[in-house]
């Protein structure tokens, strides 16, 4: 898995990039473009925009490689770049409508339109979460990382990841419920 690659290996690749060997960046792109794309796609809800955003994140990362903390995983760093790009894009969009009654209806319908609407509201509520809570939801559900991978990416114990995830989900639901009221 992409997050099981050693940080030392990544440091070496980054070092080669900084020394002028741009080809050393390719293994990093191959390793991380998929989870980053997933995060962008889930946050933005648009595949094409997600591809653009992923590409932008890699280009910005390459240009700023010297500022990457080698003690942390490259993924943690570029994830932050991507997340900021996505959040900026989401904030630039026009404000969304209020929550209608369809979400609170007793039906368990999986109508794609309804599901899409729910997903859009969840994304909106996600922006209101504290960063630490938002990160665990994005990495766990959107990037589809396992707990230990989220732990590695954020540099916090797995127990903390689980605890934050519980709080984040609860807060997210409270925000959605409050929006309806």
């Amino acid at each position, binding site marked *: 898995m992409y997050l099981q690659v050693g*940080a030392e290996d990544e440091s070496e690749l980054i070092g080669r990039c900084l020394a002028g060997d741009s080809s050393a960046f390719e293994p990093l792109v191959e390793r991380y473009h998929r989870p980053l794309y997933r995060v962008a796609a889930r946050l933005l809800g648009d595949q094409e925009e997600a591809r653009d955003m992923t590409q932008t994140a890699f280009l910005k990362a*390459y240009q700023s490689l010297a500022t990457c903390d080698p003690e942390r995983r490259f993924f943690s760093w570029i994830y932050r770049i991507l997340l900021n790009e996505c959040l900026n894009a989401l904030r630039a969009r026009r404000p969304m409508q209020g929550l209608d009654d369809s979400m609170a209806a007793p039906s368990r319908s999986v109508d794609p339109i309804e599901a899409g609407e729910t997903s859009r509201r969840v994304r909106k509520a996600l922006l209101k979460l504290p960063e630490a809570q938002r990160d665990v939801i994005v990495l766990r*559900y959107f990037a589809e990382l396992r707990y230990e991978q989220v732990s590695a990416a954020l540099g916090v114990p797995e127990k903390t990841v689980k605890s934050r995830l519980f709080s984040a989900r609860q807060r997210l639901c409270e925000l959605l419920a409050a929006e309806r009221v």
Partner: protein
Amino acid sequence: MLARDEFELLRRHQDGELLPAEVARVEALIAGRPEARIAAAALRSLGEPGPIGEPGAPAVMEIMARVRALPRPAASGWTRASQGISRAIGRTVNAVAGPGSRVEESMSSRSKIVWGISSAAVVVLASLWMVGVIPPVNQGADATIGAAKRYQAPQIAAKDVKLGDTEAQAFMQSETFDRMLKDPNTRKMLASVEMRNMLATPGLNAALTNTSFALALQKIAGDANLAKMFADQELTASLADAKVSAALTDADMHAALADNAFEAALSQTAVRAALADSAVHAAFADSNLVAAFGKGHIQQALKSEQFRAGLAQGQFSASLQSQFKTAFDDADLQAALSRNEVRSALATASMQAALSRQEMQAAFASLAVRSALADANVRAALTNAQFMDALAEAELRSSLKGAAVSGALAAQQLSAALSTELRSYFGQAAIQSAFSNAAMRDTLASAQFAAAVQSAAFQSALRDAGFASALQQSSFASALAKADQ
């Protein structure tokens, strides 16, 4: 508002973890509570993969094509990182030394402490450099303290360095920092005048802009044993020492730190134990000893693995605190200690036991004995190869370990003898040769000789020029040995 257990129930429902008996409860919850329906929908939405597609392999090629078109990434962050450290230290100096400043107001007390501790670590580093724990670069393998392979390690890379406020925050969240914070000694030390003076020294500021220092600080902070040193009150007394400041700006020191040698040193259990020993702290804090250790020969001695192992022994390090350490500030004695034989002797358990004996320390504390050690002839003896070979012999060390001999050394008459006539004979080749004689060593180690040494008659004889002259004769030593048998 959903209760915690209700929310957990919905979460488990979404994750398919419900027990059959719980299904009805969840259904009732969703049916009766709008907020439960919203939560269930949100959880379902989070868990659904959604039609997001795949980025596809061409995405990598597209990204790389654009990457190759970009100019080479900007210069290394090391310079910026150094500036970051400098800024942080600047804040610390203002915060600690400049009460009432705006910077101080904006800086949390925890931040003050974390940088204060780092600054204390710099003093530790300077001490380590001066005493030779951090070896100079380009030295031979025989002068290293670890396995030769350690010194073939690659140069410290950028990945080894943590710098900036982010790292300071991470350190502040560490267990090591919590331990330090709770330590009353640490708090007292950071409030000390010495610490404030040290923080204001240009040498410290210059040192902290060096990335090698940042690395070393990181390693120190991560080591529990070394962390104990930060709280040591006696160590802070050495902060004002000009030599410490000078060491901080030493380019060779920076180069040595960048040579991975420091990490290798810290990887040695014996070294860490020695550095954590309160007696060693006291020794480092002693300006005479530090001055002595700052000289090349002492550094060489300290680089001996055997000597370090000896240093890690509590008894030996305790002996460093005794008054004889002032005698170390002498070129000839340092030359003696640079000899392998002496270092080996000092590293032995019997020698350490001898040095740790109260009587032996009393002897060294005696002005007469110290005066003797300061005598050029005695020191010359210590630099004599044969004499040192003798010192390395087990028999002679055994004799020193004995209560009778050390008691005799502490006796006033013998001290007096050592302070006057006898010492001059130590400088003579014949006497030194006598000590290298196996028979003489056997004699010195014997119980009878020890008893004789204690006698007033013998000590009186020592003060006699004729007797001392006889000691020069090898036949006398042989006779003495035979008489002993």
